[in-house]
């Protein structure tokens, strides 16, 4: 069969689309359980305060109300746990204050849950919530990280100076880096902000708890990227429910982008309340509620210094970062600015000496955790901005400066000075490709034409690397992870030869039902429609770690491959028996087991039937049945990379930036479904441009959110985006997973912000502008032009 029509490498249409296009998807909020009650959370309206009075008696007596929960109901119940321990520069563990299900005497951010009204209807719950007699003595809030570190006001008593940890990496390099910078021929310094974002999957979070008293069985339906992780964290650390009594189902999930990785208080709440009230309990976030209860992203303030020798070789990099944790530690928050950020500071470059110091800070803001890219966008942004600035200061081409310092193809595997070993890559190839795509040669003419219309045109480049396929368990264990990061898959061949694959990965838009079926189809030589992919239910799939960090194909797909290999191996034995041949003489191709050199053959389906109807079967040597489970633990991260280019036009009169063109040349290793890969880049680039141009989650000095809904938080819309020009022809396959794949889910969001900002700075260079912090809103751009020309005039 034509390789391009089916299997690995084909742009197979997505099978999941039909249900989504006809309104037949089943998202958590589409589920209603018989007799269910509705939960409404009463949340803090102040950023910091002491609860001095909380009397819910009137609310509890209101029509339809089953119970009003407060922290008193959760005495003896654990807090929401953190899944990653960071050890600070002095060898001390990070500060890890309790994150209670409901506030215990104190509220620490706007949106911190205080009480929950559970009633027969949502309207009754909301009505009753207004009857709660709540008094809060407002305390001064700490919002700015540097101010927070001065102490005086503590978010948690355990951290009087609001420092969660003070981390150094690579600590042994500190003195050498300082010295290299001191004696460098040139040092480029840049202070920048990686702006706080709200992930905003279009489906708001939702959770339904259910309890079956007869079997002492709990069920949680939830909007999660990783149901087993939720079962583990909530069962073991919060509610004390053993795994066999707790089922977690994540059905169709409407986007995640990281923010649905974490275990949230609302999930534990509905599970707990369902048992207490002996009825199903449902909670669905409003969008406004999502803005104050979903873990947010980024929020780093960084000073980066790049040292170069007289020949423009990078000699050292120093990066001092403050990372906002928000008011509590979300599940993976501590690892984002450390291990997912510090280890990527080499980028694509041979910089020999790197040092970073990260201070993680508690503030009276919504917790921050991984958002698409997580740590890697922050690393890439500072590198690609500081390199561009260095090129401008030195009067050299930013492309040439990058290429001069790239790790070269013959240097792989490459040991970076920041712990990780890159397996493969060809950065010159992707850079050259994107320069060609961007028509650099024609840019001057386009710029001149724009100028004739009063517009300033700019072209910016960036090159990124990321570490995906998270992650080798022994390595992350040594770095503080409190879980393994393998993936699991069961491949069940049914008696008539169709296949059900049970994967621990979770699809919330990535198209696993299609892509994974392509892999299995290719390996077994059976049509894709003979293969079903099952995910998202802890009672059906083996213990898996879920989907994040662009890991599903590289890790989850590898687990499937391993299981299919076991299936083929067993089937070969059965075939040898049925064909009365030696196992060594059996070949398997296009779904047929053949005796080499003869026309004797058995189709895969015949082998499956023999395995389940073992009448003529080597029963002494092989068990009946054809089903295999594998747990795949990756040997290394994967390292996708790519060159991005962005062309913009600035209206100097208003500061409006128009994205005229965007080009992406990525190396993702081998591709299984190019159509889906392109879709991932489109979406990632839109999120990156959203970060760079539009989105900003800010709080005022009192901790009130200033962009707490879509009335003020600017999401990218269709008219903000150009068509994205994509090339994935530069391929250096991953060397350590069976498919040679690297992962593509986050790349777009990592490479696009620096490309966009570099383009705008390129456009504004003639006006004396050297940097603008994201987002580059019209006002920010106008003020930069205005300020720069005012300075120039003086």
């Amino acid at each position, binding site marked *: 069969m034509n390789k391009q029509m089916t299997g690995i490498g084909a742009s197979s249409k997505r099978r999941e689309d039909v249900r989504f296009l006809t309104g*037949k998807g089943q998202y958590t909020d*589409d589920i209603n359980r018989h007799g269910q009650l509705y939960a409404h959370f009463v949340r803090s309206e102040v950023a910091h305060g002491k609860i001095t009075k909380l009397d819910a008696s009137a609310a509890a007596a209101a029509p339809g109300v089953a119970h009003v929960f407060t922290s008193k109901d959760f005495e003896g119940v654990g807090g929401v746990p953190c899944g990653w321990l960071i050890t600070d520069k002095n060898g001390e563990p990070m500060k890890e204050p309790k994150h209670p299900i409901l506030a215990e005497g104190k509220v620490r951010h706007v949106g911190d849950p205080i009480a929950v009204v559970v009633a027969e209807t949502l309207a009754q719950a909301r009505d009753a919530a207004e009857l709660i007699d709540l008094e809060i003595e407002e305390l001064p809030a700490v919002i700015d990280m540097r101010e927070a570190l001065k102490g005086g006001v503590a978010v948690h008593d355990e951290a009087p100076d609001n420092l969660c940890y003070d981390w150094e990496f690579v600590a042994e390099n500190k003195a050498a880096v300082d010295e290299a910078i001191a004696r460098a021929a040139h040092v480029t310094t840049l202070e920048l902000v990686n702006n706080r974002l709200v992930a905003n999957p279009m*489906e708001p979070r939702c959770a339904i708890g259910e309890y079956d008293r007869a079997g002492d069985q709990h069920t949680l339906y939830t909007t999660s990227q990783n149901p087993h992780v939720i079962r583990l964290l909530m069962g073991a650390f919060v509610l004390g429910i053993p795994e066999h009594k707790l089922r977690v189902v994540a059905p169709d999930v409407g986007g995640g982008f990281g923010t649905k990785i974490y275990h949230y208080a609302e999930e534990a709440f509905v599970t707990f309340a369902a048992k207490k009230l002996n009825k199903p309990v449902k909670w669905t976030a409003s969008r406004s509620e999502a803005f104050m209860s979903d873990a947010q992203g980024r929020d780093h303030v960084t000073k980066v210094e790049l040292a170069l020798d007289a020949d423009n070789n990078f000699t050292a990099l120093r990066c001092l970062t403050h990372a906002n944790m928000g008011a509590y530690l979300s599940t993976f928050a501590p690892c984002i600015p450390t291990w997912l950020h510090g280890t990527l500071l080499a980028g694509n470059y041979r910089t020999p000496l790197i040092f970073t110091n990260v201070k993680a800070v508690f503030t009276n803001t919504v917790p921050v955790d991984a958002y698409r890219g997580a740590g890697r966008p922050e690393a890439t942004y500072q590198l690609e901005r500081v390199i561009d600035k260095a090129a401008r200061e030195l009067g050299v081409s930013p492309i040439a400066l990058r290429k001069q310092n790239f790790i070269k193809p013959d240097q792989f595997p490459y040991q970076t000075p920041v712990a990780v070993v890159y397996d493969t890559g060809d950065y010159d190839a992707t850079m050259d490709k994107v320069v060609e795509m961007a028509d650099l040669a024609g840019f001057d003419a386009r710029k001149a034409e724009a100028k004739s219309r009063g517009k300033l045109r700019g072209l910016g480049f960036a090159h990124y690397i990321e570490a995906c396929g998270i992650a080798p368990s022994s390595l992350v264990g040594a770095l503080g992870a409190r879980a393994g990061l393998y993936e699991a898959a069961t491949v069940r061949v049914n008696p008539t030869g169709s296949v059900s694959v049970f994967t621990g990965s979770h699809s919330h838009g990535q198209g696993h039902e299609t892509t994974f079926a392509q892999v299995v189809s290719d390996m077994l030589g059976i049509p894709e429609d003979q293969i079903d992919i099952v995910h998202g239910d802890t009672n059906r799939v083996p213990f898996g770690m879920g989907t994040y960090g662009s890991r599903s194909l590289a890790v989850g797909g590898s687990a499937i491959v391993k299981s299919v290999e076991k299936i083929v191996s067993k089937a070969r034995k059965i075939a040898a028996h049925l064909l009365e041949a030696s196992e060594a003489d059996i070949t398997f191709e296009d779904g047929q087991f053949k005796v080499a050199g003869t026309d004797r053959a058995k189709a895969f389906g015949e082998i499956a039937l023999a395995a389940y109807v073992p009448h003529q079967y080597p029963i002494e040597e092989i068990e009946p049945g054809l089903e295999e489970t594998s747990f795949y633990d990756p040997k290394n991260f994967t390292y996708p990379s790519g060159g991005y280019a962005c062309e913009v036009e600035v209206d100097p009169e208003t500061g409006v930036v128009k994205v005229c063109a965007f080009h992406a040349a990525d190396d993702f290793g081998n591709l299984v479904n190019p159509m889906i890969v392109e879709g991932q880049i489109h979406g990632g680039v839109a999120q990156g441009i959203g970060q760079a141009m539009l989105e900003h989650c800010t709080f005022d000095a009192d901790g009130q959110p200033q962009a707490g809904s879509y009335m003020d938080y600017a999401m990218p819309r269709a008219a903000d985006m150009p*068509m994205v020009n994509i090339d994935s022809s530069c391929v250096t396959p991953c060397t350590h997973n069976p498919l040679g794949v690297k992962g593509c889910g986050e790349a777009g969001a990592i490479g696009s912000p620096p490309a966009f900002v570099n383009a705008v700075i390129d456009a504004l260079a003639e006006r004396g502008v050297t940097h603008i912090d994201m987002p580059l809103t019209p006002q920010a751009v106008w003020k930069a032009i205005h300020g720069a020309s005012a300075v120039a005039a003086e």
Partner: protein
Amino acid sequence: MASVSMTVNGKAVSGEVEGRTLLVEFLREGLELTGTHVGCDTSQCGACVVHVNGESVKACSVLAVAVDGADIRTIEGMAAPDGTLSVLQQAFQDHHGLQCGFCTPGMVMSAADLLQKNADPSEQEVREWLEGNICRCTGYHNIVKAILAAAATLRGEKIAAE
């Protein structure tokens, strides 16, 4: 409580609603048509777009009682009775115009309204029309492609029929 009757996807339905019941609540909870989604509470996202008497509206910002007697079409009513996807739905699948699927019903309903008003929209017109529909997954690239492709197919069908 008030009684409302309307035609939904060609079928006469009726029910009891409060004055404050939103059309989207009536569809999702009253009629169990859960294809119409709620993605925000400030009328920006467009996941809830349905047609009322042929015009696209946001079902989260319309009272159910206010559309008493109206002809409503939702995503569940877009495919043929035998399940065959409409040209527009098929174009979304062919061009990978959806990922997580949550905004998709609203996108399809909004785009269907555009195509009945403008059979030959430019790329820019499609992008501007989608001002009231937010997608977080696709970067809009393939949504725009799908709508333009559907428009071309529909024009072809129209020419062929004439």
